[in-house]
């Protein structure tokens, strides 16, 4: 057992280091050869024992590696602007400087290089790029034709073997709209029809011909799990038909996965004999058990979340975020204690039995209990107005007497969301060294009247409301609506 653990840790740290190197190379503009296959970093083995990379199950395998590379960009400085950094109090009339795709300085005044693009932000606001932990962009694209319903593999209650990225249509016209709302990073999840729906993928909201070109380099995968009404409704005739059936289904899957993990960790450690049979579903679940994939658990009711926490303990994994969690406020103290974030709506509810106890104070109450509260969308329209939804949740929290700052509300859509994706060291706040994902707002983003004016990802301006040439249109949109449509 200790030997297995060693291998696990070794592999993980090698992987982290490789991504770090890759990121640095990209930064320096040395993008050649940075997509060297991750398999090259796997523990050395005798060639004869490895039947080919698709034939074995390796921790942190990356068969569809990110090809995302930011375009080169000039240094950019915004002056006289109010900055929500998500790392401290609002900086009033300050400046932010970004260079080489990273934030280099934020403060009352900064010294910018002579060639920097200078923007006057008088009366305006800057926030980190917004992060949506719950999106179905690309897998449920628009227009919503039957041919594009690729988000829910509802053929079996456990479909851990599917990966959301293989359903993502990069020409989904919802991507540019979400970007225009200031959202720069999204987690695209499989739907909630299954107990275990498959792998999520973290994407930059940036144009690309392939999903690989949108994938956030080095981001961990997520595993979509779903409680409650949806799976038992989908499988009513063949099971699970009840909540107890749901729980039995999760546990059976984890039992098989734990066995699989042991078998493969042993083989990867000693490479003795034939490798075990590779199974895509168990491989994903085993990666959860190794801590390499983060659990993203759709769950509405407090009582079911409590049960999911026990299941996680039974099998030794962590739940990173409960999604939707309309009753999270009932167990906010437990979420704080267990270190589980809540990806929540500001005001959705009532649309089914398990959503009946929704309250607009949910996010505020979870925050006040010391748990990580996150505003998430699950909706391509909502995802364009994450700031408004945070403002709504903030107002509701204050209405029930909670003292919560504007800065905290911005954290719900930035750094807290980054944490749920395991990316809090890269995005979610404006601090030196972090990715230069940021938004210039026409006014306070907590006002209904504010609009994202310019949006940058990795220091590259990808959206400018004031310049139609800087407004991404997907292939799908061309020709359908004349340019008299102007900006959206």
């Amino acid at each position: 057992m200790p030997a297995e653990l060693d291998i696990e840790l070794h592999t993980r740290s090698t992987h982290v280091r490789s991504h770090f190197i890759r990121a640095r190379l990209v930064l320096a503009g040395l993008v050649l050869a940075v997509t060297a296959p991750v398999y090259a970093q796997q523990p050395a083995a005798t060639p004869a024992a490895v039947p080919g990379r698709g034939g074995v199950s390796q921790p942190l395998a990356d068969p569809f590696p990110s090809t995302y590379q930011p375009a080169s960009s000039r240094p950019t400085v915004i002056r006289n602007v109010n900055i929500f950094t998500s790392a401290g109090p609002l900086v009033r009339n300050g400046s932010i400087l970004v260079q080489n795709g990273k934030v280099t300085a934020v403060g009352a005044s900064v010294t910018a290089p002579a060639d920097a693009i200078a923007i006057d932000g008088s009366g305006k606001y800057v926030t980190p790029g917004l992060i949506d932990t719950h999106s179905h962009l690309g897998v449920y694209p628009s227009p919503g034709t039957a041919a594009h319903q690729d988000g829910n593999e509802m053929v079996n209650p456990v479909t851990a073997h599917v990966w959301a990225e293989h359903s993502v249509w990069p020409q989904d016209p919802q991507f540019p709209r979400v970007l225009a709302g200031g959202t720069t990073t999204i987690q695209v999840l499989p739907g909630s029809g299954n107990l275990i729906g498959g792998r999520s993928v973290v994407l930059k909201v940036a144009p690309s011909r392939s999903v690989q070109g949108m994938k956030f380099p080095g981001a961990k995968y997520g595993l979509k799990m779903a409680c409650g009404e949806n799976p038992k409704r989908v499988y009513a005739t063949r099971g699970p038909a009840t909540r107890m059936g749901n729980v039995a289904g999760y546990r059976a899957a984890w039992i098989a996965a734990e066995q699989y993990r042991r078998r493969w960790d042993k083989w990867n450690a000693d490479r003795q004999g034939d490798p075990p049979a590779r199974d895509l579903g168990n491989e994903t679940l085993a990666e959860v058990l190794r801590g390499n994939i983060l659990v993203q658990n759709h769950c509405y009711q407090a009582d079911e979340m409590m049960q999911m926490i026990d299941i996680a303990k039974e099998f030794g994994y962590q739940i990173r975020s409960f999604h939707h969690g309309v009753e999270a406020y009932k167990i906010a103290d437990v979420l704080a204690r267990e270190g589980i974030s809540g990806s929540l709506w500001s005001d959705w509810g009532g649309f089914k039995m398990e959503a009946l106890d929704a309250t607009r104070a949910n996010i505020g109450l979870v925050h006040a209990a010391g748990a990580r509260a996150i505003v998430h969308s699950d909706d391509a329209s909502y995802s364009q107005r994450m700031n408004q939804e945070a403002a709504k949740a903030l107002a509701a929290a204050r209405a029930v007497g909670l003292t919560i700052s504007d800065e905290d509300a911005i954290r719900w859509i930035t750094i807290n969301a980054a944490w749920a994706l395991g990316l809090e060291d890269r995005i979610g706040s404006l601090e030196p060294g972090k990715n230069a994902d940021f938004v210039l707002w026409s006014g306070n983003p907590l006002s209904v009247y504010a609009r994202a004016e310019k949006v940058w990802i990795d220091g590259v301006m990808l959206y400018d409301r004031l310049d139609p040439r800087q407004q991404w249109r997907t292939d799908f949109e061309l020709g359908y609506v004349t340019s008299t449509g102007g900006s959206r």
Partner: protein
Amino acid sequence: MRALHGLPSRARQVATLAAAVASVAGPVAARAQAAPPPVIAITGGTVYPVSGPKIEGGTVLIQGGNISAVGRNIPIPAGAERVDATGKWVTPGLINAATNLGLTEAGGPQFSGGYNDTRATGTKGIAAAFNAWEGLNPASTFIPMQRGDGITSVLVAPAGGLIGGRAAMVDLAGATVGAMVVRGPVAMVGAFDPTAGNLQSRGELIGTLRDLLTDARSFVARRAAIESNQTRPLSAPKADLEALQPVLNRTMPLAIAVDRASDITAVLALARQFNIRVALVGAAEAWQVAAEIAAARVPVMVGAMNNIPGSFNTLGMRQENAAMLKAAGVQVTLIGNGPGDGATFNARNIRQEAGNAVAYGMTWDDALRAITLAPAEAFGVGDRIGSLQPGRAANVVVWSGDPFEFETRAERVYIRGALQSGRSRQDELSERYRRLPPNFRTP
């Protein structure tokens, strides 16, 4: 007087609840009263009558459930209850003109009943005689939530069907449906959508509507023959043909959901052919034919929070739609097209729609009109609600600030002169878990 009938018992019930939680209740909650006092003077606020320019430091005088005077230097009768609204904004109660509120809770038919007539999902999707509001539940827990955000009236409409049935305008107070209704029916509701009638094409859709209206037109002249089945097969049962008469004689509009620009043009042509009044609902691509709509003097109900080409009918959807229509001279009503069940649970988000309409080019005054007087006029109840004028029902909201901003609260909500509670089931849940009582502390 019908306007006040039925209010006291529910208001009293709410008042009892509110009193029990007065220490923690929101501003709207704790002041509900058993019956409206004869005279209320709301003074000192910035008053937005909508029917006229704003009045700084204005007074709204309420007598017997109606507005009796609005303006500066209004004499206040002795004994009137004075409400100091200094620093507050005073507007008409907001109207959401596209809801299914009270028809169902918890997500639809499997729990508490649906929104439409069986025939609306039948072969031709025609259920003109259906009265959606007759199934409204005045005790719906979704109703106080809306009041708490300053919504005082809603259009309760059927959902689904080519001709889905009739809608009514209701006030969100009253113990019975009869007490809530402002006027009903106020519109025939339909959808310009082949799938709504299980049809194959737009051509078939237009033909079906034409046949229906033609048969309805012949109904009056040939009533006797129809009653005795002495006619060729008609396109709808007698009750539906009869229900369409107010549409044909222009006393009631056909409010039709239609998105594609060419479909809007087709609806306008149909309206001309049969000389009927229509209102366009949804109208995603209306901005492309704004001049045509304005010339036809057809009101439009649009949202301001959707730009997603969710279907091939809405490829041109954009958030500037409302502003562009208004600029072209169209009477615009803002309805919900944002996310999150804007027709029931979140009908309250109409003020977020208004704020977004302003962000995308509408004037603030026009946006307020678009959720007050514009829908009232479009549905023929402008003489009762939608503005602060003498003689109108006293549906009045005192806001802590700009009603479109999230931080603003509806501090006092009056419906027909009676102070309402906005305290909802959701508020009770929040309070319970805000300070967890000992019995609930075991996780």
